[in-house]
């Protein structure tokens, strides 16, 4: 069965430091890949997506992600974290067209001064 793994439940970084959140998926073909962010008490906001083409994709709020087919990964990065980035981040995978997304369990990001 298709699955998405976010290995890190909770990450703490210092403000201004770089960030990488990991995401691995299990699927035979290239899926549609998404990263969402959820601030406390809020809904989910789409950060970025990949479905074909350039494997390095840029998103909102200064985030980027790189699709690596050989590693079945789609890691999210940001060069300099701001306190407002503290939130929960979800990686999600769609396997064709309008099929429902499969979500990872999320990574909670804390930012310290």
């Amino acid at each position: 069965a298709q699955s998405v793994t976010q290995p890190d439940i909770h990450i703490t970084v210092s403000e201004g430091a770089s960030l990488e959140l990991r995401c691995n998926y299990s699927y035979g073909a290239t899926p549609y890949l998404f990263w969402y962010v959820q601030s406390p008490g809020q809904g989910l906001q789409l950060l970025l997506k990949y479905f074909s083409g350039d494997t390095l994709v840029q998103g909102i709020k200064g985030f980027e992600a790189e699709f690596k087919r050989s590693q079945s990964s789609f890691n999210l990065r940001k060069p300099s974290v701001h306190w407002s980035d503290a939130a929960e981040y979800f990686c999600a995978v769609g396997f064709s067209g309008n099929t429902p997304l499969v979500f990872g369990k999320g990574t909670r990001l804390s930012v310290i001064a």
Partner: protein
Amino acid sequence: DAGITQSPRHKVTETGTPVTLRCHQTENHRYMYWYRQDPGHGLRLIHYSYGVKDTDKGEVSDGYSVSRSKTEDFLLTLESATSSQTSVYFCAISRPDRAYEQYFGPGTRLTVT
């Protein structure tokens, strides 16, 4: 903003009572989804719809039913609420014109006592 609203936003109900949650969209999207979010589980699909009167089950559909009699409304019913259905429920739509990005409503927090 994909014009998605959910009602109610908060609800407390007693075990054994039926509950209906409503998702309303204003942009005439064909595909709609219901997910639940629980700590440590991410988002899990309950049911989805690919058109009026066309629905299908998701990963955690037991105890839930859905109906879609109009394109704009997708209803989720807990037939007899249980404490295990205490959760945050999110509705989403899919946009084929944007590489099947899914956009989420603000969520409904349901507590079953």
